[in-house]
């Protein structure tokens, strides 16, 4: 909640704000803002345009956008039905299922990457069959980046869409049924349009999370420029060899984050509309 008390006019009803609270609060704001300001202050503004359009930044940026977008598509295809099942499915043990689905939200991404390696790696539980039967190997490929990002980002979409489904009035679905619509048709023509704001918000959050994904990606897909080095990995890599490039890449990611925040301001940050 970023709503400030200053937006309310009139005298405060409870006297002055106590210093014990204000001082740590101001420190807290500084703690959050100063590092970002530092990024902007230390940015090589004169060489920024040329660096921004250099080959390595361009490749990392392109790869990041493509992978994050593909991961979002996968999350939409799997996550919307999953959210529907959680919201409307009337399943036994739904609470447990929801908890399991949201595990990647709190799981350290590196652990997610390790888990993916164990299952989808060349010798993993499923990966060995993928390799033997279809010759498909996900780790250390661009496809692996997409898988890692989708794994980490999907809960954002599921939670957002499930919330929208819960808020949507199920009586409209009943009205569609009385008009002869099957459940699938009802879902496509009535439910989905009514939860579209939630789907859009969830997709943007999901995409932003995928774009910033680092831990699971570097663990599962490694760091190969051109195929698996996304922006966050490039930042990490550049920090040792070319700090200015790292700053430029960081500013691009910061800009994306700010844009996402601005886009979702009404929907998400200030609560349900």
């Amino acid at each position, binding site marked *: 909640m970023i709503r400030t008390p200053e937006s309310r006019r009139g005298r405060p009803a409870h006297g002055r704000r106590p210093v014990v609270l204000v001082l740590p609060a101001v420190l807290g704001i500084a703690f959050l803002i100063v590092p970002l300001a530092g990024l902007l202050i230390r940015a090589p503004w004169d060489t920024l345009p040329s660096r921004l359009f250099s080959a390595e930044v361009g490749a990392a940026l392109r790869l990041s956008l493509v992978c994050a977008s593909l991961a979002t598509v996968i999350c939409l295809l799997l996550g919307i039905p999953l959210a529907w099942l959680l919201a409307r499915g009337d399943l036994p043990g739904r609470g447990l299922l929801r908890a399991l689905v949201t595990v990647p939200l709190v799981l350290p991404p590196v652990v997610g990457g390790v888990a993916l390696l164990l299952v989808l790696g060349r010798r993993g539980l499923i990966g060995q069959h993928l390799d033997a039967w279809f010759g498909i190997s996900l780790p250390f490929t661009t496809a692996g980046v997409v898988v890692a990002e989708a794994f980490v980002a999907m809960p954002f979409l599921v939670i957002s869409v499930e919330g929208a489904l819960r808020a949507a*009035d199920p*009586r*409209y679905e*009943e*009205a*569609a*049924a*009385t*008009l*002869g*619509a*099957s*459940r699938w*048709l009802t879902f496509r*023509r*009535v439910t989905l*349009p*009514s939860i579209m704001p939630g789907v859009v918000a969830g997709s943007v959050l999901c995409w932003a999370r995928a774009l910033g994904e680092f831990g699971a990606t570097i663990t599962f897909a490694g760091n190969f420029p051109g195929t698996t080095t996304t922006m966050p990995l490039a930042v990490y890599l550049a920090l040792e060899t070319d700090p200015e490039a790292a700053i430029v890449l960081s500013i691009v990611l910061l800009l994306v984050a700010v844009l996402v925040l601005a886009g979702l301001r009404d929907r998400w940050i200030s609560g349900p509309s």
Partner: protein
Amino acid sequence: MTLRADLRVTRDSGFSLAFDLTVEPGEVVALLGPNGAGKTTALRALAGLLPLTEGHIRLDDDPWDLAPSVFRPAERRPIGVVFQDYLLFGHLSALDNVAFGLRARGATRAVARAEAARWLERVGLADHAHVRPRRLSGGQAQRVALARALVTGPELLLLDEPLAALDASTRTRVRAELGRHLRDYQGRTLLVTHDPLDAMILADRLVILEDGHVVQEGTPAEIARRPRTEYVANLVGLNLYRGTARGTVVDLDGGGRLAIAAPATGAVHVAFPPAAVSLHPAEPAGSPRNTWPVTVVDIEQHAHITRIRLDGTPPVLADITTASVAELGLEPGGTLWAALKATETHTYST
């Protein structure tokens, strides 16, 4: 083909619904009762949104619900439903709302839209075809909902409080329009309402539900003349006549003439509550503009009121206090004068 239902639904909360219902083709049956009587539960069971616990629903030999073995869900029953707040799809135009049922039943887009356009014209909304529901007034939304329910040619039309969401001024007009469409409709109609006036004007037969059970059933006139419980007496205690208005005078179809407050023309309903009628031993002088001689037919004693059934032109119901009964020396066969102020009457065009 007759709709026959033995509706039995038991809830965990202890509420139970149990009553028989038949609806003939072309018939409008009103299910009338207070909140929580089970009206909506009955409607949902008939619509296929709620399975019966016991009993059955059949359209002649075609089973819709034979608890517990057969249950045909809503999307496979030939029904149309007008919901209380209409539930029009907000992202679709009025035309596409009406076309929805036809599309769901497999019609091509062009055919569905052409048929939907015909229905919108029929309900007088041809020029609102491309308007989104939130831009429609309450009365317009109700007409779109009715067109949407009727466009598929349902065997059973279910109306859930179809006038409750309207304000008083549009209500009269929309009720009259709804009545016209129901007269044209060949299928069976079940109207769920808590408003006795809607029920008496729109329905051929009333089924009065209290606490999940039928307390009385019959034509509006029968029930108004002989209410069996005080609840029913209060519910349908309404003097209601059809007639032809000329200015502030209405010639009643059954004989007699009433002065009304607001000028009207053509076919109208005139209604007033029994409490508005006063009884006098001789012809009263003074302000009441309607006075006529009546004969006492019946005296019904309820807890707080006494309802007097009176014959005359027209016959009328009057509610008076128990003290007045003694004062007037009322007994069946006695003659009196009924008086009614024109301002107590309500006139509805039909």
